[in-house]
Every structure is written in structure tokens, then in C-alpha cells.
């Protein structure tokens, strides 16, 4: 195994190259820029397409166009730039095209700042664009996981003809960690049956998101919902630590999740029966596993770098079975392990009184 010390943004970029990325379109924004910077050289060296667009709006529409030709495409941005892409993302969802979009989240709302944040949770899971759809959303906590999720993202995108978002945060993007990259994949693959490649000698194909008749649009929506239902059933992913006998279940994803791990480890050393579940897919949310663990635990603590967004999904999953509390920091502030440890201790002692 060869481990390399890689910055998250660069690791995501190289993993995409190795997963068979044909074309990248993007626009620079901190804390994501190294991803684009790296690809500007690497894609050009390999004779593949790299294009710095004039704006995020242009970039996402280039992704739309390239995906329609059957190419493996990606774009990346950070929160304010991601907001600009929402119209295009909805068109892509409405056209059922595969693509990978990376959001290296930063403090907001508005221009906010460039520090790590998870303030886009609602946006990536609920409102990546208008209309009824959810993207598949993967949330890496380490550089290795970022690498692995890129490969997974392209595979899921192709499998479901659906967009896959990688919701990282400034810390995952900027941090360097040892990681192992996958081997280079062969980019030759059969032409997808929707690909617009010129209709000479074959029947015409149409890629669009326009259905003027309401019943046709509803029929499309029913088809889309059926696909999303299948994704919900088969693609929930999460990872667990110390959950076997946990009375208090901590739930956190990405950077908040890995910092919570340090706090949970410290709490265990103090004899507190606490465990951690770290969702790896934010959509579909790992409802099934959380619901199972809630049957055994007496309380839950959600940790996020926002005002409490995944909190709502946890409450939906747990459905009032046990109390669900929250600890969060906002605006680009990354919580320290000792803050989360204090929140664990407070909530745990409250549970002991209840028991």
C-alpha cells in the first residue's frame, strides 16, 4: 500500500481523474480552489477537458451539456458558488443525467467567510434546485474517505443516472492526510443509451427537462420518485464507533463527526457509555440504522457545524422514541473536542436522572 500525504482538495481532484473524469468545468472559490488549480494542469497533461468557466452558472450548464453527450463530468465549488448552480442542477435532475458536484462548504449565509462549515446541509439534501428531487449526497470526514467517495460518486451517478454531490467542508478540503489513491481506470466504456452523439444512422435521442403537458410531467415525476425510493432503500451508509452498549448516541458527519469521535473516545475513558454514528450518506439519510440504535439507546446528541439542520432528519428517524439534543457551532467556527465532551457529559448526566 502506498500512502501519499494529500490535501483534501487535491485528493478529490486526482481521485476523479483516476475514476475516469472526461471533463471538468468550474470557477475558483476558496476553500475549494486547489481542486480546480490541480485539474487545470493534470487534465491538460492527459489531453482531457479542463475549462475555467466565466461563472458558476456557466460551469454547471457546461456540465449539463457534457453529461448529455455521455461524458463523465464534474464541477466543484463552495457555498456561494454552489448557490449559483442550483438552476442548472435542477435541469440536470430533470434530464436524469449523471454527474458529480463537489461543495466544499464555508461559513454563511451570504458571502460569509472561508472557514469550514456545514451550513449547506438543507441545501444539498433538500433544495439543490427547484422541483421534486434529492441528489445523492456523500459526506467525507477524512482525506481517504474523500478519495473513496469520489469513485463511489461516479459509480452511483452512472448506476442511477443521477447527480451525486460530495458535501465536504473547508477542513476536509484544506487538510493534508496520508491516503491511498485507486489505480487509473480505463475511460473506454460503452456509449450510454441517452448520449447525444449525432443521430446519423440511428434513432434520434432527446435530453431535456421540459414536459409541457401536466400529465407527462407527472409521469416523469413518478418515474423519478421510483428511482429515488430505490436509492433510499439500497444506498444508506454510515459508520459506527462504540455503539454496542451506548446509552447516549452521538450523531455527526464530516468534520463535526471526526471531532466528535475524539470527544466520544475521551468520554469512554471516563466510563461514559456513549457511541458515535457518522452518516456517510446525507441523502439517503441512514434512517434505518439510526432507528435501530435508538431502540437500544436512551438519548441522542446531534453535533453539527450549523444551527441544527441534520437534527431534523435525526428527529424524523427517531420519531420521538428518545430525547434528541443538539450541540453546534456556526459561521465557520469548528468545535473543539472539549466542547463536545462537555455536551456529552451534560446530556449523559441528564439521562442518568431520567433512568
Amino acid at each position, binding site marked *: 500500500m502506498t*500512502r501519499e*500525504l494529500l490535501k483534501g482538495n487535491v485528493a478529490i481532484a486526482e481521485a476523479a481523474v483516476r475514476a475516469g473524469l472526461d471533463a471538468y468545468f468550474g470557477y475558483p472559490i*476558496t*476553500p475549494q480552489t486547489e481542486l480546480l488549480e490541480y485539474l487545470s494542469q493534470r487534465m491538460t497533461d492527459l489531453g482531457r477537458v479542463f475549462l475555467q468557466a466565466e461563472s458558476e452558472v456557466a460551469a454547471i450548464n457546461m456540465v449539463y451539456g457534457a453529461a448529455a453527450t455521455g461524458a463523465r463530468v464534474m464541477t466543484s465549488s463552495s457555498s456561494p458558488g454552489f448557490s449559483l448552480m442550483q438552476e442548472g442542477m435542477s435541469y440536470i435532475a430533470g434530464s436524469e443525467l449523471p454527474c458529480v458536484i463537489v461543495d466544499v462548504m464555508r461559513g454563511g449565509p451570504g458571502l460569509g467567510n*472561508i*472557514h469550514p462549515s456545514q451550513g449547506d446541509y438543507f441545501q444539498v439534501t433538500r433544495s439543490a434546485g427547484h422541483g421534486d428531487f434529492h441528489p445523492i449526497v456523500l459526506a467525507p470526514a477524512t482525506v481517504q474517505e474523500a478519495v473513496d467517495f469520489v469513485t463511489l460518486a461516479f459509480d452511483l451517478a452512472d448506476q442511477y443516472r443521477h447527480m451525486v454531490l460530495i458535501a465536504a467542508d*473547508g*477542513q476536509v478540503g*484544506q*487538510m*493534508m*492526510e*496520508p491516503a491511498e489513491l485507486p489505480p487509473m481506470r480505463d475511460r473506454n466504456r460503452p456509449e450510454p443509451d441517452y448520449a447525444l452523439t449525432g443521430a446519423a444512422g440511428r434513432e434520434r435521442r432527446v435530453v431535456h427537462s421540459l414536459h409541457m403537458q401536466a400529465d407527462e410531467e407527472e409521469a416523469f415525476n413518478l418515474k423519478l420518485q421510483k428511482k429515488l425510493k430505490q436509492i433510499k432503500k439500497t444506498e444508506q451508509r454510515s459508520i459506527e464507533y462504540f455503539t454496542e452498549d451506548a446509552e447516549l448516541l452521538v450523531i455527526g458527519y464530516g468534520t463535526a463527526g*471526526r*471531532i*466528535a*469521535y*475524539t*470527544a466520544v*473516545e475521551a468520554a469512554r475513558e471516563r466510563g461514559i457509555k456513549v457511541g458515535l454514528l457518522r452518516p456517510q450518506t446525507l441523502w439517503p439519510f441512514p434512517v434505518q440504522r439510526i432507528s435501530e440504535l435508538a431502540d437500544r439507546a436512551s438519548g441522542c446528541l446531534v453535533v453539527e457545524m450549523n444551527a441544527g439542520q441534520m437534527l431534523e432528519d435525526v428527529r424524523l428517524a427517531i420519531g420521538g422514541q428518545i430525547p434528541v439534543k443538539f450541540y453546534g457551532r456556526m459561521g465557520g467556527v*469548528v468545535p*473543539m*473536542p*472539549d466542547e463536545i465532551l462537555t455536551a456529552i457529559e451534560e446530556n449523559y448526566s441528564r439521562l442518568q436522572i431520567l433512568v
Partner: protein
Amino acid sequence: MQKEFLFAGFGGQGVMFAGQLLAYAAMEEGLEVTWIPSYGPEMRGGTAHCFVVISDKPIGSPVTRHPKVAVAFNLPSFTKYEPVVAAGGLLAVNASLVEPITSRTDITQLRVPATQIADEVGDLRLANVVMLGAVLTAYQALPLDALRRALEKHTPEHRRNLLNLNYQALARGAELAAGMVQSA
């Protein structure tokens, strides 16, 4: 075993590279490591810092409130981070640029005239490597040889002419710290 290091100084003093070098050396030794920089406008001239965590187990948080080692390359960094070093930890200071001496009695202070030594070795830019040599001698997180190997492997092509000077800088820092530790 988890060891946390904070490197802080002016943009241009090689603070980020010092942390990266330590991270590469830790990886050379087969350890887990995280390196996380400040990446704001301070990269263009203000006070920049980076955090390195080294462990023999998977690393959760790559940041901590009270690092075991803080390395201050300039006065603003000394002022900011002197109070946060963990009790029993090490505060390494570039004595060429930082006059004040810590009043804390629960930490070890290592005063290294790093800029002056770097100048004597032949290049002011080597102050970061002088500091690393001193820090790893006073606080033995990794063998110095791992750092030499990291330098050998990860010095960029256009700086390889400075490789021997880097080894000298590392040795001078280590020598100085060894003397201080002995006399303490």
C-alpha cells in the same frame, strides 16, 4: 500516543512547510498524521499557522485547544499561543525575533535564535528547519533521521540546491537544543 504541534509565524517564514515536513516525516515512520493550515489572507503576509497531529491510532480531531507543542516564529504568535500550550508541554520560540520570556512555570521554554543560526548557515529561509531540529530534539516525537528522509524526498526540484544547507540547519538546531536540554 497522540502529539499535537502548532507552528505559527509571519507568512514567508516557512511555517506551513515546517509543519508539512513534520507530517511527511511522521508518515515515513508509518504513523497517522494530519496537517491543517490557516488558509485566509494571512497567507499573504500576516500571522499564519498550521496544526500537525501525530498518532499511532486513527486521528479524530485534527485540532485541539491545548497543543503539546507550540512553535512561535514571531512576537504576535508568541503572544497568541503562549497561553494555550498544554501544561507540561513545550513552547519553542524564535529568540532572534521574540524578546519576551514566558512567565509560565508549567511548560518548558526552548529559546532558539533560529533566524540568526539560519543566517550563519547561509540562508535566512532555513529558520524553519533550524526550529524543527531543535523541537524534535527537545520533544522526541520522531527521530531526526525521519526528518532528514522527508527533506530528501519532499524538497521541491527548484530548491534541491539547498538540501545540504537544510541538513546543516537541522543539525545546528538539534545541537543547540541538546545543549539546552542537558544544562536544564
